């Protein structure tokens, strides 16, 4: 699959995802913005395993920008634009607080995990791949490690309230 085919597939998936979270117009605008970034700024990224995660990262940023714009424009509470403060492009305290709260929730959720899940999470933070974790845990099948990790992820996201946000 070449880069154009990848971008074409990405456009469909991004539009569908954005449409599920935003309005159709905002979803199309968001998709166009993401592809524009990939085309203009990351034109040298051609490999699938690099282009797709990059597309997810750009998509997330654009989603957050869209929410901030909508909030700033009063699309959620219908406030006057004149009453809203001017936008700050740097990390504002609200963003910092949001990240801090997410980190605290994540720490609290990890503390409630079981021993195996914490070990798995620790080894993943140490950068160990699933095959390496399989060896560490002495499992003959890597699917066992996949299954354990999937259960631990679901348990963790449940402990965080059903979302990583």
């Amino acid at each position, binding site marked *: 699959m070449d880069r154009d085919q990848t971008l074409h597939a990405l456009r469909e998936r991004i539009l*569908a995802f954005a449409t599920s979270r935003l309005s159709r117009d905002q979803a199309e605008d968001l998709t166009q913005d993401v592809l524009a970034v990939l085309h203009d700024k990351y034109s040298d990224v051609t490999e699938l395993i690099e282009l797709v995660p990059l597309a997810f990262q750009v998509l997330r940023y654009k989603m957050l920008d869209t929410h901030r714009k909508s909030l700033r424009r009063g699309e959620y509470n219908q406030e006057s634009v004149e009453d809203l403060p001017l936008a700050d492009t740097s990390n504002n305290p609200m963003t910092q607080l949001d990240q801090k709260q997410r980190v605290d929730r*994540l720490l609290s959720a990890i503390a409630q995990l079981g021993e195996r899940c914490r070990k798995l*999470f620790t080894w993943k933070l140490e950068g160990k791949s699933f095959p390496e974790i399989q060896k560490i845990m002495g499992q003959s099948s890597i699917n066992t490690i996949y299954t354990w990790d999937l259960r631990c992820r679901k348990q963790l996201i449940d402990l965080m309230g059903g979302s990583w946000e």
Partner: protein
Amino acid sequence: MSEKDLEKLLGGFAAETLTAEEKEQLYRTALHDQALFNALADEQALKELLTDPTVRRRLFEALQSHRAERASGSASWLDWLRRPAGIAWAGGLAGAILAVVLGTNLYQESLRQEAQLIAQEEARPLVPSSPVPAPTQSATPLTNKPPATSEQKSRSSPPSLREGLTDKRPSKAPPSGTSQDERRIDRFERDAAMPPAEAGAIPKQTEFSTETVITSADNAAPQSIASAPPPSQPAASPLPSQSKVDSTMPLREGASLSARSLFYRAGPQSPDQSIAPDTKRREKAASESVQPPGQSELAAQSLAMAKSKRASPLQPVGIRYSLALREQSEQTHDGAMDSAAPLALTVESNQDGVLQLWKQVGPAQPQLLFPISEAEQLRSKLVAHTLVIISVPSMPGRLILRFSRTDRIPSATFDSKLLDDFSRGQLRESVTPDDTSSFPPPIHYIVNQDPSLSEVIVHIAPRSDEQD
């Protein structure tokens, strides 16, 4: 891995620990699978957090600290035990457990010992409550008693004692042709064979006389008495059964300690020098009296009374006797007809000694009736619990029996004052065997209460009812 199972790689996507192959497979599938793409898009938030080195370090530290807390959790138990309260709790708990274990062991041990005692009690053979002297080999065939009946067995006396008594008295009836003296001896022995303790438990049916009882109950077992060999006796007059004799053996009223029991009881083993001085004085005075011998006939029976124990020196001196009327056809032991001696006096002492029989008519001086001849001199030396039958002529007056456990007894005179001296403090008891077919004479027991007295003197007034 199937496309459906690619969801399992989401955890590696956020932590960026997927291999190149896993990434290729996951991303290629995500381009065609909207759900997987949406999951990867949502997972990007976590991936963004984990990409931040600060957040990653904090998470790592949190996980390491949690592991350290888990590791220190076991050490905290040791810390808790090192505290005084922890030591007290642990000590108290250990003491309680130890007490429970010891208590359980002690309880089980006591149960086991009790079970052993019960087993030993069950395994132990029945022992009679009172010792009964075993009959000697020579005495057993000489007995002439019927077996015990059910009435006899139902009494309160121990069964073994009862068996011991019945063993000494076979159920075989005496053969016909038994002489009158032998029947007297047999009846005499039947009374003797009955233990006083047993007699005390039997209701009184016949009583001849009653004497005063002073001391407490007598628990001494009677000595076994061997019977004379059963000579021939007419079958028309069989002896009463043993059960009948026992059940009708009379008692002294309210007697807990009787002359009969004292007669058979063994005294304490102490030397003779404990005799009281006044007793010696009376014996000395008695030895000074002299009485001429009178006429008498001795019909001594060598009964081979095998006694299991002899009287001790301080056993109260006692005799028992019965006076019966001789039949006209009766002969003496040597076969000579004794028409001049219609009475037969059967005497038995509980100690070895010398026996004298005196006759006193009115206020005159007593005259010696027995022993007169040299043969009677030998027979007058009684062996304890050996019967002696003395033929007594029928004449007015009274008879005086004098028995001394000392060998020296004057035979010339008899001081009448001695009769009063020795009569004081005597226990008397009379029993009448229930021999309704022949109206047996009563048997009298006379025993000195003072064991230091060496003589017993009793006067006998022949009466018409003391006839055989």
